[in-house]
């Protein structure tokens, strides 16, 4: 397939996943703020921080808006701000732009769904819904993303396109889960000595809800303990939004693309993803916490960036390869 098409499919998948995750975080913050928190305003800024865009928000909206109860400024910023590159509307716009370039690789239904989703998001109706019944609105975003994934799952041939799609989704999901954990953990549990202490169940439950993992967590670990939540979100091999699970899928996709056997590598993308996956596979939560979760997640994010760079140089930037491969 064309390198440019592979690039577009990969980013289309990433942007849809990103939009979905932003919707998740905002929705959970909304829920928590209704739960009678002592300091409801504090729910909102971490969301902006999770995306790494605190500076831009403060510049555009100011300090006062950041702490305002109800979080409508933050919500507007994260959902509808077209100038903010990681807002839901920006992500879906970019996903659709990418989809437009790869129409031939998508079933008509997949394109039509994404297109409708975009037109809904830029409509006045969407803004009205977000204000009047925010929970319904953000659920709809999540559902739209599920639906896209489902259409693709049941219509797309399992060829290169498919692997690039899954690769993009898996890496973005790993990135998003690690970000939200980083921000929340910092607030919930500032020091390692707090491990094992009684914490507010509600806040941890909210974190699990934001990745739709509350039920799965309960079945796996029962009681909500901070280190178990970290274990579940980072090192679980069965929960589909856990970082390790996502990395295993990303590794599979890359090996599928080149036909490389498990346990070896033929290009830099494979090398980076396998190394990162192995790092997570051969550690445990005690080590992670004693090392410091924030440092651990920081390294993880760097690792994910290196995987992204490896993918770019291996598949998308053909000219930089030292020797050309020719096909007839």
């Amino acid at each position, binding site marked *: 397939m064309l390198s440019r098409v592979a690039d577009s499919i990969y980013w289309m998948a990433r942007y849809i996943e990103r939009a979905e995750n932003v919707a998740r975080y905002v929705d959970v913050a909304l829920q928590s703020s209704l739960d009678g928190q002592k300091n409801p305003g504090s729910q909102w800024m971490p969301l902006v921080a999770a995306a790494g865009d605190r500076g831009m928000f403060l510049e555009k909206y100011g300090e006062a808006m950041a702490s305002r109860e109800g979080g409508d400024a933050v919500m507007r910023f994260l959902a509808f701000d077209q100038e903010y590159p990681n807002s839901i509307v920006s992500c879906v716009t970019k996903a659709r732009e990418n989809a437009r370039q790869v129409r031939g690789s998508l079933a008509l239904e997949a394109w039509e769904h994404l297109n409708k989703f975009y037109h809904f998001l830029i409509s006045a109706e969407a803004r009205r819904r977000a204000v009047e019944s925010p929970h319904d609105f953000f659920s709809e975003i999540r559902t739209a993303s599920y639906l896209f994934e489902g259409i693709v799952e049941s219509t797309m041939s399992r060829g290169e396109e498919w692997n690039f799609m899954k690769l993009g989704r898996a890496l973005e999901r790993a990135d998003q889960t690690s970000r939200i954990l980083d921000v929340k953990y910092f607030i919930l549990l500032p020091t390692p000595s707090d491990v094992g202490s009684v914490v507010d169940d509600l806040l941890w439950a909210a974190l699990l809800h934001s990745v739709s993992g509350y039920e799965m967590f309960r079945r796996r670990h029962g009681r909500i303990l901070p280190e178990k939540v970290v274990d579940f979100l980072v090192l679980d091999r069965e929960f589909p939004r856990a970082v390790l699970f996502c990395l295993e899928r990303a590794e599979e996709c890359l090996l599928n693309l080149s036909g490389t056997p498990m346990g070896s590598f033929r290009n830099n993308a494979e090398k980076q993803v396998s190394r990162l996956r192995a790092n997570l596979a051969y550690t445990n939560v005690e080590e992670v916490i004693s090392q410091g979760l924030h440092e651990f997640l920081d390294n993880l994010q760097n690792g994910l960036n290196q995987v992204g760079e490896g993918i770019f140089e291996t598949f998308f930037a053909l000219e930089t390869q030292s020797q050309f491969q*020719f096909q007839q």
Partner: protein
Amino acid sequence: MKLDRYNPGDFYDEVFEAVGKPRPPAGVLVRTLESMPEGELNRRQLAAEKAFLDLGITFNVYNSQSGLERIFPFDILPRIIEASEWDFIERGLRQRIHALNLFLDDIYHDQRIVRDGIVPLELIRSAKGYRKECHGLNPPWGVWCHITGTDLVKDGDGRLYVLEDNIRCPSGVSYVIGNRQVMKRTFPQIFGAMNPRPVEDYPSRLLDMLQFMGQRSGGPPCVAILTPGVYNSAYFEHSFLAQQMGVDLVTGSDLAVRDGYLYMRTTRGFKKVDVLYRRIDDDFLDPRTFREDSLLGVPGLMDVYRAGRVAICNAPGTGVADDKVIYAYVPKIVEYYLGEEILLPNVETYMCWVPGERAYVLEHMAELVIKTANDSGGYGVLIGPHSTKAVLNEWAERIKDNPRNFIAQRTLSLSRSPVIVGDECEGRHVDLRPFVLYGRDIYVMPGGLTRVALKKGSLVVNSSQGGGSKDTWVMPAVPEPLNGHAGGSPGGLSRIGQADGQAHAAAAEPLVQPETPALAKAAP
């Protein structure tokens, strides 16, 4: 819906002969529309518009920061063409395009038509679309104009005329197919009752033609569509056709010339391209041969083409026949190459480079339509009767400055067709752009894009100037039991096998037959 008050006025109307009297093939349509409750038609119109938006059948509005997209305005009342009229159009188009292709091949080789004194050399050399770099080139199978979108109009007396030939990169065929898809959702019952000829097989026929141009040993040739990119106003069409044919849609940066071949950049290295359906102008194809500043094309592409290692559709250089002064010679071109009288006539055209004709034009500007030789898309057109003294004077000066660049035509009274305006119907002017493929044989898609000037009284149908479109229904062929000629290939198709052409037409036959044979088979 009340259609009995619809007044065709002093125009030729495509649906109504007179007030309350639909033309015979439109009878079913009109009766069904009249039986619909008040507001129903309008509701279906809105639903159709929503369907276009959902399907992403939109074009970009230039200079719009918010990435504004619009649907191409669409009117759900179809334009209907009788079988007999269509047969005539089809024969006329085959004849015309066959002759134009011979003309192109001639002027890039021996220029017999010049030496025989039919077309002056000066006119060819000064045509903006003439490419001296193409002299002596031999495109595969001698075909230059693979895809044509001829513009036809009907005058007040019901006669058809060719307005433009469009043999560079004609667009609009995706809207024909899109319109048809939406119409099937909009009027399923009428559609079933009237059984118009299908248009949805166009992408398959296009792919057949393109692959035929790139035949090579060992597997089907690799076909790609070259687009200027996602911000081009026709991008939807480029991506639609690529998707329908299952070929790659490429931009210039996806392509590279290496060791004398054209390649595209894939995730598994470079892959050879055999046929390029290009949707960018000649000027931008290859910065080493044409415009140096082009970023849209591929450096070295023309060398690969010259060496016969890639087919380019349409062939570079076809624009010479789109020059409106050359257009004026098409009747002579048909006669010269085919020895036949032209079937689909030109609109009477005055060439300003001829002193006598120029004098006539300057004297009668207020009655004529004046056009520049090289513009398209409704630009470079002055409609005398709708113009003002000052503008006429300005154009008169321009004509005197550069007479070669202007032609004038009689102002036609374009035919009209009813469109929905609120809860009423009003007549609007229409034209027709059928699409023709030239490969193994010549294929004419039944129908084409009916463009409609939605602005009341306007004669300009171009989408860039407030035009919209309608679905075009060509009625099924009436069986002729006695002397049944299949309406297949016309006389004079000597160069590209005639027998083949008939075989193709015969193979396509079941598509246009009514459903009875299938039913008869199912019965036992």
